[in-house]
């Protein structure tokens, strides 16, 4: 169990640069997720740490050892692959035994038939057997040991892949989207199981995923990656509530964060009217510390806003779609100033709105403001679009 310190790692394939000066510190025993869309370089970073690819620049330290130039087998890290990567010709027992045999037996002892006359080999094999049964018991896969991978379900194979990684008690676990080949229900179940496993083992986990829900539910910290660099590295709460970049805000959270387009006008925020026939502009009483004329994006989450009557609201539009989630309903409102539909989360017991109704949207918290290029801007004053108190009665007619 060790910390992993990555410093200024760069990697490119041919002319395309995949990772640029990545630095990341993972504490001993921490569960860290690398979160990002496909092609952001998160898997490449994991492969560099594993030693399956070699970085052009930078260093990787695991525990006390600089492993940057070491072979994968000398790094003492274990990896779980998206496709499980079990050896199809070996039984589950032998699959889990491979990492132990490769390390504890020499080339001569691994030859077939040596067990017939080498006492030492027999002794080592007995120890291996014990370790395998221990791991199999932890994962509840003892009954599967004599079977072949092809005879197992996806979830069972996933457990075996975990077992193969766990069995030699590595310094840290590297996981490359291990749950994405499972069906939705099993995926949710395995999330809690992985968290539990992390707590039991107390080991360092580095988990690559493109699923923000997985990252949010399991991690101690999340590193959000885009286009080869880390945008934000923080706890799930901070990533969700305080994204430091528009791309982070957009990527994390479901449903997607609501975004309005606007600009800065003499230190104040102005929301764009996209309809050119009216020249009216929506001014928001928000002071931002940014140069005049800068294009900005105002963002708020679906649970940070509510439906109000259309008359008093600056943000108003027509209900275009309703998503009933049971516990609550997502109301999609088509608003001119928004980049896309604004999605409002409404509690199930709240009065129902109809498709096509004209509604206003009120934002109940200070929204996040980003420059169009991505970085977060600081907002000084309070947000006042419409007073929430006046709204509830008006809605019943909608």
């Amino acid at each position, binding site marked *: 169990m060790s910390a992993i310190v990555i410093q200024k790692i760069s990697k490119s394939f041919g002319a395309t640069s995949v990772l640029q000066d990545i630095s990341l510190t993972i504490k001993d025993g921490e569960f860290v997720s690398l979160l990002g869309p496909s092609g952001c370089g998160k898997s490449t970073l994991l492969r560099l740490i594993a030693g*399956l690819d070699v970085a052009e620049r930078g260093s990787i330290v695991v525990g006390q050892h600089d492993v940057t130039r070491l*072979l994968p*087998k000398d790094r003492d890290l274990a990896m779980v692959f998206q*496709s499980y*990567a079990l*050896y199809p*010709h070996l039984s589950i027992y032998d699959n889990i035994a491979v*990492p132990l045999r*490769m390390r504890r037996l020499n080339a001569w002892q691994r030859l077939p038939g040596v067990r017939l006359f080498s006492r030492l080999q027999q002794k080592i094999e007995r120890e291996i057997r014990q370790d395998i049964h221990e791991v199999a018991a932890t994962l509840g896969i003892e009954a599967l040991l004599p079977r072949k991978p092809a005879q197992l379900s996806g979830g069972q194979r996933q457990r075996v892949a975990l077992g193969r990684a766990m069995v030699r008690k590595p310094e840290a676990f590297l996981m490359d989207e291990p749950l994405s080949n499972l069906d939705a229900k099993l995926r949710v179940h395995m999330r809690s199981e992985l968290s539990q496993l992390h707590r039991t083992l107390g080991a360092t986990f580095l988990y690559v995923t493109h699923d923000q829900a997985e990252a949010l539910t399991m991690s101690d910290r999340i590193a959000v990656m885009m286009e080869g660099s880390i945008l934000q590295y923080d706890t799930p709460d901070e990533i969700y509530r305080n994204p430091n970049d528009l791309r982070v805000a957009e990527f994390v959270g479901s449903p997607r964060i609501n975004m309005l387009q606007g600009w800065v006008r003499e230190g104040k925020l102005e929301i764009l009217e996209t309809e050119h026939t009216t020249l009216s502009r929506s001014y928001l009483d928000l002071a931002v510390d940014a140069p005049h004329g800068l294009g900005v994006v105002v963002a708020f989450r679906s649970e940070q806003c509510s439906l109000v009557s259309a008359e008093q609201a600056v943000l108003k539009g027509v209900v275009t779609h309703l998503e009933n989630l049971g516990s609550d309903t997502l109301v999609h409102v088509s608003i001119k100033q928004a980049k896309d539909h604004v999605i409002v989360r409404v509690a199930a017991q709240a009065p129902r709105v109809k498709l096509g109704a004209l509604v206003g949207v009120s934002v109940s918290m200070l929204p996040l403001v980003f420059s169009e290029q991505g970085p977060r801007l600081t907002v000084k004053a309070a947000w006042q679009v419409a007073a929430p108190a006046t709204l509830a009665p008006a809605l019943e007619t909608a």
Partner: protein
Amino acid sequence: MKTLKPHAPKQRTKINWAPLYLLGPALVLMVMFLLGPLLAVLGLSFTDYQLGAKAFNWIGVENFIELYQDKNFWRSLRNTAFYSVVVVPTSVLLGLAVALLIEAQKSFKDFYRTIFFLPVMATLIAMAISWQFILHPTFGFLNLLLKEFGLPTHNWLRTEGLALWVLAAIGIWNQFGFNMVLFLAGLVSIPRHLYDAAAMDGASTAFERFRLVTWPLLGPVTLFVVVITAIRSFQVFDTVAILTKGGPSKSTEVLLYTMYAEGFEFFKSGYASAVTIVFLVIVLALTLIKTRYLEKKVHYV
């Protein structure tokens, strides 16, 4: 009794002819060109029929008894076995080795693939004639080359104990390209992540990776290649017919050449049919081993 089956259906149901119509053409061709001749050969092997004769007698298993006592037949069987024992492992291993080398290459893959596959595409008879010139004792390229380096020369195809080796070498040259192509296809189908897993598990040398991943996952391909090569080795005929005609002193006489000589040179059709039956039984046995026993052991999915 009639009352027991008041609603008994009509026993004569209409035969549905459509499937038979559809099967018909293929069935006719198979009977004409495969099953028919096979049965004819089987029948002939129990007769003393001679090519061109107007009549024949049933002589039971006499042909097979004669075969059993025929030293020449046993010699030809031994030669065929020897040829196969040399050609099968060598051309399989060589095919695998070349495939691994090509797969490890970064550039010129297509070039190497093509030149190693050329012998497979060439007409073996034409190639055999080329080999005849290369191996010619006086003006052959090989002997001239050996002379140039001061090495002893040989009459390659007329020396007992050497000629069969030379034929085997030509057989290997002719067959390994085919095996290489099959192995290349097999190598491409091995998932890359298994090599990653092997690297994480501690397999760091090329040999360890080969033993842990490549070799076991090539199992189905290897089995297919071995069986195909074995069957083709048992069928060796062209090179023997062109280069040695079974000589010198029958030292390169192989099963199919014996069959040909008995049937079309001595016109003993019944006897030749018996040889053919022996040949067919061997090929059938190989195929059965492949399907019944080995395939179960090497397929994973």
